[in-house]
């Protein structure tokens, strides 16, 4: 069982090495520009979450108001 696993892993590592020539965005990362994209994505995500948070607060307020009314 263990031997089989080693063989599979060895084969897998060979496979990965054989594919090292594949073109990836290495230059972009070297120039540091990938972080610009990361920054943009994170800004949008934070904006969306902030929006959700504000909506949540608004609904909580509504719930409280309606709770007082029906009492």
């Amino acid at each position, binding site marked *: 069982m263990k031997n089989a696993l080693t063989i599979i892993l060895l084969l897998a590592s060979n496979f990965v090495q054989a594919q090292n020539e*594949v073109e*990836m965005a290495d230059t972009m990362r070297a120039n540091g520009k990938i972080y610009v994209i990361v920054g943009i994505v*994170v800004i949008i995500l934070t904006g969306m979450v902030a929006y959700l948070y504000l909506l*949540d607060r608004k609904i909580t307020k509504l719930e409280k108001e309606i709770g007082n009314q029906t009492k």
Partner: protein
Amino acid sequence: MKNWLKVAGVLLLLYTHTGGLLFDVPRLNILNETIRALYFHVPMWFGMILLYGFSIFHAIRYLRNPAVESDTRSVEFAHVGTAFGILGMLTGMLWARYTWGAFWHGDPKHSGAAITLLVYLAYFVLRGSLENQEQRARLGAVYNVFAFAAMIPLIFIIPRLQSSMHPGSGGNPGFNAYDLDASMRIVFYPAVIGWFLIGYWIADLRIRLKNVQNRLIQS
């Protein structure tokens, strides 16, 4: 919904959006950097399935004990689930355009997902066509059970019986180490959990808003 769950969802998403773009990924021809789309495209479908799961759960609860609250929960989970499904479809089409060559291929998984979305859209049409609240809730709940039951063969079974360009076809994807590299799992699973939590949060907001609305109508 507990506040710490919302915070956890947000943190997981921040992690996956940075890690998903920066961490090393397997170098594969044709896919190139688009392999990272896995972190964003697939969680949409996982999220959809989980949200639909909650929807059918509340539909069955409604059928056992007809409370308006269960009906509201069932609809809103289905609503957010459908939104996730549409996003999954659009992201998948864009990804397919640049790796497989065209937006649409009629791949079994494409067709299955499209039919699933149509089945769920019919759920909203059915609900919208009924005036009486009780009737709408009961028929909606029954149809919801059918819709979920239809989704399982459409997404999980039929695509695996046929050859498909999606990974995991013609076998069990759970046992295929090649499909999902170990280095990708550390981002992929948090992404699934994070997106699901955000979806649950949105559904929770919609449910609470609907409850407020219902109370206003009653008083």
